[in-house]
């Protein structure tokens, strides 16, 4: 008979040597950098053109996102329909994403079709024409979507907490209202396109099963354009945080849940505390076994889920605790959150718990490095933040070795309730 009460022997994940597969770097004729990972059994690839064209650079609220969205909505020779049909005929997906600093155009395709698709991507980033009627449809549908989202307590809470932390003028804190959509014009979009795409600053990432001639193809499609790569981040915008720290908002009088956001400003990725906080955050609310989850979900049943995380910004950041809890237990949930924060400042994390968190984090990074798209994702974050491979290996060392006393010191420094904003939206 086996003894089922006894766990099998394990190799502690902290004993594993994690290896981040190095990228290959190519430089196109115009200086554009291409970072690539060639790996994977499936005959697929992912290509991402990352422009520095996000909302940090926009001259009107919502302009960066709208311009990015409309890159698929018409060139001088093709309608939106024709562009979509071309990608879809080859079973490919062309997506656009607009963030704070960057705005991307990406392609997911079977590797065998990539050469049929690159010329169209070139066309989109050099010859988009922003038709009036496409903009009108975009405005109308975006406003409709916004009106639905504004009924959701979580959506409203996410907007407000960022505005408190950074100020409504800051790229990380501003949000859109219907009038912002109304104010958009195709002329503004053309100007944004001209400056930040056509003559823009770009980095290219590609991963998967890469055809042998891919770099020649990329060079012939993008190497003659007036775009280039520069690793200069834009100058920092001024943060004007709200002076009031506590908020209660009634968004839906019939709401049965409250969206809770408790957050504080936090220095960015380059700050010496950043890696250490990743470990402390995991203990607090960074995974299913975290203290917030164990207490507020698994012991009290106040919520379906509670999480904490550090926002992934290039510059200043914020540390956030986020949950949706029953309306009648929302206040009790917040009390428990503060209790857990306080406990971390008063008692060192015991070794067993800390080992579990270390093992969990290492195991999850190991799983996360599985596959070319995940690997290039890690590199993208490192490269765009002007870091290098050492950052990855240092963060592994931190996870494996940071002592409990140091985490308690960090708790005392960062988990003081008076530094945290508190918001409940029902």
């Amino acid at each position, binding site marked *: 008979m086996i003894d089922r009460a006894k766990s099998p022997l394990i190799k502690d994940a902290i004993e594993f040597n994690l290896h981040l597969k190095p990228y290959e770097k190519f430089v196109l004729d115009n200086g554009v950098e291409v970072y690539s990972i060639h790996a994977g059994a499936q005959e697929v690839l992912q290509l991402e053109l990352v422009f520095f064209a996000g909302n940090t650079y926009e001259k009107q609220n919502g302009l960066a996102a709208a311009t990015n969205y409309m890159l698929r909505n018409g060139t001088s020779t093709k309608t939106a329909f024709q*562009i979509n049909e071309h990608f879809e005929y080859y079973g490919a997906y062309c997506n656009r994403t607009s963030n704070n600093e960057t705005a991307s155009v990406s392609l997911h395709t079977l590797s065998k079709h990539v050469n049929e698709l690159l010329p169209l991507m070139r066309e989109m980033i050099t010859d988009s024409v922003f038709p009036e009627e496409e903009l009108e449809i975009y405005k*109308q549908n975006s406003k409709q979507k916004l009106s*639905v989202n504004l009924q959701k307590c979580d959506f409203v809470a996410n907007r407000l907490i960022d505005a408190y932390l950074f100020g409504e003028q800051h790229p990380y804190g501003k949000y859109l209202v219907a009038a912002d959509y109304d104010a958009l014009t195709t002329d503004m979009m053309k100007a944004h396109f001209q400056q930040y795409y056509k003559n823009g600053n770009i980095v290219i990432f590609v991963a998967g099963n890469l055809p042998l001639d891919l770099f020649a193809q990329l060079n012939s499609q993008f190497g003659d354009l007036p775009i280039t790569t520069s690793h200069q981040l834009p100058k920092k915008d001024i943060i004007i945080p709200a002076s009031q720290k506590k908020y209660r908002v009634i968004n839906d009088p019939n709401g049965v849940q409250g969206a809770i956001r408790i957050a504080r400003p936090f220095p960015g990725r380059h700050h010496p505390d950043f890696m250490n906080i990743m470990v402390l955050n995991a203990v607090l609310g960074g995974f*299913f076994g975290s203290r917030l989850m164990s207490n507020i979900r698994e012991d009290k049943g106040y919520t*379906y889920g509670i999480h904490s995380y550090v926002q992934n910004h290039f510059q200043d950041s914020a540390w956030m605790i986020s949950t*949706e809890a029953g309306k009648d237990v929302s206040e009790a949930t917040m009390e428990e959150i503060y209790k857990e924060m306080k406990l971390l400042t008063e008692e060192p994390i015991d070794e067993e718990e800390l080992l579990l*968190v270390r093992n969990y984090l290492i*195991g999850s990074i190991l799983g996360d490095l599985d596959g070319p798209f995940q690997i290039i994702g890690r590199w993208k974050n490192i490269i765009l933040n002007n870091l290098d491979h050492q950052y990855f290996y240092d963060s592994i060392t931190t996870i494996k070795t940071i002592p409990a006393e140091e985490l308690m010191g960090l708790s005392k420094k960062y988990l003081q309730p008076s530094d945290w904003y508190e918001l409940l939206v029902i």
Partner: protein
Amino acid sequence: MIQYEKFTLENGLRVLVHTDESTPMAVVNVIYDVGARDENPEKTGFAHLFEHLMFGGSINIPEYDEPLQMAGGENNAFTTNDLTNYYCQLPAENIETAFWLESDRMLSLAFDSKSLDVQRKVVCEEFKEHYINKPYGDAWHKMRELAYTVHPYRWMTIGKELRHVEEATLQDVKDFFYKHYTPINAILVVAGNITVEQVKELSQKWFGPIPSGTKYNRQLPVEPRQTAPKMMEVKASVPLDALYKCWHIYPRLDKRYYVTDLITEILSGGGSSRLFQALVKEKQLFSNIDCSHYGSTDAGLLSITGKLVKGVKMKDAEAAVMEEIVRLQQEGISEQELQKVKNKTESMMAFEDMSVMNRATNLAMYELLGDADLINKELEMYQAVTREELLNESRAIFDESNCNTLYYYSDN
């Protein structure tokens, strides 16, 4: 081509092994042949609530998550109307931990009343978060009740109402466990950096001694053919009017399933799809429109749903949808359009197969359907679909008497 080996333990547990030496990880996936369709109509939402309880400690192990996290693993689970699936991923060296944990909770749960108390609350919050506190959150509850008269797809996996979840008892939990959570009603898939020999030895060691249990033979009421259109109107505090239309389609193993799946792609599979182009872009009647189906095991529903542009009348929006359907029924599609949706399907499958976790879960799902080999045959089935079949099915499915319509009006 996804390679795998299959064997069955003496207690009836089916085991599939898929080796992939390129990953440092291993995945252990256990599927149980029970879903929301197997629930008592007075105790709906139970299969899903039960899934939560599977993490509340087993007979010999007080905590499921902790030892797994200690071994560098993570896990999750999901319940559908058809099945319940549990999966975990961990460094391949530590795979025995997953065998230990999974086999103990198949052997028996701890049946802890505190865990039941807490998870009832957690699931009620999940219910509120997704179906009560969200605009249009109740639309699918209403649509299922409209479209099905006897089949248990009448209710959603989360359950008909909060009360059913609130009233679940520990006796219900025990009965459910002994009826469904047994080796004979389960499939184990192990994938990643492991060998077949290793899996044979470990599964014999940990799962071999578990009593087989009784095979659950499902006898669900068959939904009679719908003979007249059905319709329903609601008014709710939402900003926009929305249209929901559903038609009955075929079981997952019916050959016509593939034809139906391609029809949804043609109608709304992307920026060049028919409904999007005609109704969102050209006529601007909808701000979004979607055509899809759940891929359910028994005969499911094909749906078209969309939010109307403010000021557009429901009747006009609906007529425009039907105009596109009629065009499909009369003119069919071109060879090029058919090739497009086949190409999309091919690439979707290739992307899905990238993750070892997806491969493991898919193998388990296909084996549950009756044949794990389907994982390697499906692409062919899609490739074989003809224009003529598509034309015939668009006529059969979109028959007026087969249709269910929900007008979801804004109250302002």
